[in-house]
């Protein structure tokens, strides 16, 4: 393949919406600490029989731009925790954790965590009646 063809291929992929990578799905049924290898991953709790806490690593400039998506696929509490005061979420710049833990409102809840290098912005992806619980020290 010539260099020109390589560049054409590259251009074709980037410019015309042909890069549509699959998401990496990882199942966890017990609490888990996210590592750099997990960035860009979708975690689900399918099969969990107890609360599952996902702990994010400390925000750092090296993490900036990395993301993780958490989806509750079990009728159990799902908590996303960060280092002390390192979560930014609804109406709180210094939260410690955010969770789905209200009965009958757990399944189908999701959190998208994006690091900006200083904190993890954790955004709920939920239905209109799903209660988000935020904990701050």
């Amino acid at each position, binding site marked *: 393949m010539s260099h020109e063809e390589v560049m054409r291929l590259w251009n074709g992929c980037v410019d015309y919406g042909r890069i*549509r990578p699959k*998401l990496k*799905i990882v199942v966890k049924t017990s609490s888990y600490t996210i590592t750099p290898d997990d960035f860009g991953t979708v975690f*689900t709790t399918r099969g969990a029989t107890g609360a599952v806490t996902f702990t994010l690593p400390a925000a750092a400039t090296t993490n900036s731009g990395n993301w993780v998506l958490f989806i509750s696929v079990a009728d159990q509490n799902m908590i996303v925790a960060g280092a002390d005061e390192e979560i930014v979420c609804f109406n709180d710049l210094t939260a410690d954790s955010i969770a789905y833990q209200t009965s009958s409102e757990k399944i*189908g809840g999701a959190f998208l965590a994006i690091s900006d290098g200083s904190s993890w912005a954790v955004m709920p992806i939920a*239905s209109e009646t799903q209660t988000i619980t935020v904990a701050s020290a």
Partner: protein
Amino acid sequence: MSGENIMRLFNDCMTGGRVRPLLKIITKTSAYTITPDDFGSVFTTRGAAATMTFTLPTASTNLTGEWVLFVNVADYHLLVQGDNEGLVVFNNLTADNIGFKTTSELIGGALLAICDGTSWIVLPLATETQTLSIDTTATSTSTSTTTATHTATSTSTGTLTKTATDTPTKTATDTATATGTAGSSVTLTVTKTATDTRTKTATDTTSASATKTFTETDTTTSTSTTTATGTA
């Protein structure tokens, strides 16, 4: 460009967050079934003049990680349909479809469908006042109990050993001995009550879409009266 430089370029792109591909946008104005070629696409309903239903393929392990985003850009219902019980949505692990159906809450609603190999997990991307509509097919299990009673009577004479078999599978053994004075007649009356408890499982299909399992307990009480007449 050398192979090494190509790899450097690729590396820079992947590690430096420089791969920011355009999303593939597809507009549909009538019902549509998603195919593998559509994975990783954003579907909009711009221009639709009626309810829009997008049907997802059956979830399977080889679809793990595939995703599709649906965005409602018309003031009509937007529905995402899965296989029977094939969707995971809010408070439901076995939903059939999910959508936006409430008047004045239709435009701008979006649904992100991600396959985890077992189901399609469908996450709403909506405002806090946008109402989700979720449909499921009900599956119920019920239990009924019936009791049947029947009576069997037999008569025999003398020293009596009797084995009676009842269908299904009930065996009763009744032994009676008659004694008396030589030359006289003795009448012996034996009343026997047997209880048979059986557990039966029946499958009752009452409609094309629902299979219900009943557990039925059947208690049968069997009463037999035996009269023995003997001469010593």
